[in-house]
């Protein structure tokens, strides 16, 4: 195994703050100017700055970010879903990147975040997780949305039919939900959960 013999404690983690991320700050300014009230909360700096918008304003915000010539977030890099059962919420994160705007040398040397992505996140209630689609803005979001639906059961509305992508159509439940239980069997094949899971 990779851990060495002596159990010295790790170096204390670097303070996770740093100065605000200019790309996220620009996105925030844009949204506050063009869509006031859309941003519900935000984290300005650190390793992973983000902007939280309401599900109803997501498409508006996403379109603004995509069409802004300064940001030019022309690619939806990844759509991830996270389940938060404690707060009864589910979260969808959109990591948007730009290929038209290359970061300058100063940005590339930033210690905590040198990747000029913008993270847009949406929280929806866990019992009825519905998020409007961004497939018409970035076509590639199609499969990411399908996968998020498949594994977490978050429904994306306003798009063409939403099908499972990785699992069989009749698979019980959405496995990445925190309360998902292993089914006893699938079509008569017994399922033995791995030890410790």
């Amino acid at each position, binding site marked *: 195994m990779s851990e060495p013999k002596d159990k010295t404690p790790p170096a204390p983690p670097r303070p996770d703050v740093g100065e605000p991320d200019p790309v996220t700050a620009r996105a925030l300014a844009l949204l506050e100017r063009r869509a006031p009230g859309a941003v519900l909360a935000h984290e300005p700096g650190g390793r992973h700055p983000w902007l939280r918008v309401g599900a109803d304003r997501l498409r508006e915000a996403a379109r603004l970010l995509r069409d802004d010539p300064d940001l030019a977030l*022309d690619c939806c890099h990844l759509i991830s879903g996270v389940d938060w059962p404690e707060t009864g919420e589910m979260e969808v994160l959109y990591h948007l990147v730009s290929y038209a705007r290359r970061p300058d040398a100063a940005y590339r040397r930033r210690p905590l975040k040198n990747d000029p992505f913008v993270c847009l996140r949406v929280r929806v209630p866990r019992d009825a997780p519905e998020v409007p689609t961004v497939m018409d803005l970035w076509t590639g979001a199609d499969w990411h949305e399908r996968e998020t639906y498949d594994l977490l059961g978050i429904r994306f509305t306003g798009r063409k039919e939403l099908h499972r992508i990785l699992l069989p159509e009749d698979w019980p439940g959405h496995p990445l939900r925190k309360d998902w239980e292993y089914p006893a069997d699938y079509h008569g094949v017994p399922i033995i959960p791995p030890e410790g899971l």
Partner: protein
Amino acid sequence: MSPGGVRGAAQGPGGLVPGGLYGGGGEPAAVEFHERQELVGRDLRTEEMVFNMGPQHPATHGVLRVVIRTDGEVVRALQPHVGNIHRCCEKIGESVPYYQWLPYVDRMDYLGAMCNEHLACMAIERLAGIEVPERAEYCRVIVAEVQRILSHIFAVGVYGLDLGAFTPFLHQFRERERGLDLLDHLSGGRLLYHYVRIGGVKRDLSPEWLDELRAFLDAVERRLPEYNTLLLHNRIFQDRTAGVGVIDRDTALRWGVTGPSLRAADVDWDCRRDVPYSVYDRFDFEVPHGHSGIAGVVGDCFQRHWVRVREVEESLKIVRQALAGLPEGPVLANLPASLRPPEGEVYVRAENPRGELAAYMVSRGKDTAYRIRCRGPSFSNIAVITEVGEGTLIADLVALIGSLDIVLGEVDR
């Protein structure tokens, strides 16, 4: 029966599947070959035919299934279906400690295992705030670039195979075999290495190994013109690939195509240079992109092939520079037996042979991640054939899929 699924769907007179070609997960669409009786005693008529290309098909590079609707040889519509080798990488990542998750990462893109490990370790290290020794960073770059060379020459050879040229495939295997031996000698595995570890790498590079590596680099450099004679500069190859499967800049960005395919669409972007991670900012290399100046148009299969060939040359440069600047020192940081990163989240991306592998990771201070989400570049790259494959010939579709160089292990994860 799933809503709108194609399973057991009756064949309409038009030969189309009701509900579109948008089928569900794993089961093949039951599309009946049109009844012979239909053709008897009627006027001659033509109809479109629905093919199941895969999951067992020589040109789908694994278990990709593409349902295509053809008019003769022309593909009118197509729908890729994935998920046949879904191995729950993300679910496992939430269930096992960080250390134990690393071997699973190898298995996503099994032709770029070193690069996968590199990214996964980077994500965990950033999450936990671990400093990696400098020599370890150099070791990582060296093995990742060797992996890229292996992956690209494999892609080049397999692409020849897709186009019916068998010989380049076996020629590249001669070098690939040496490279696999090289990584085998370092890590003990030929395909799945588990060499890059959290906080460094498993073993130090020995002087003998470095000599072996130099011989390998020379061999690849010597043989590369041979592959190009057989493929890149071959007239039939150019005919087959130039102007075929054009993914233009806009289409590529909309679909999230990354890696060599994106660069072939004239997007000058390489994570190693533009979002430098590890010690890539210390090396001098070019990012091939756009038109090759040999044949074809920007964004076609030929440019994608050319970008890969050029990237092999650039990787050779990077490895040589890394060898020249290899510092002394430890290769593994001191870490606790149980890694518990502080609460937080991180998003990391890296340039893999097939495109940008990215990982979003959430920690809540436990020894297992709360959520791990991986972006397999092939996942986004293969989706684009839905749009680009329309109106091509079946032979061109094979050329297109081959030129995207997908690994299904990464699509399904």
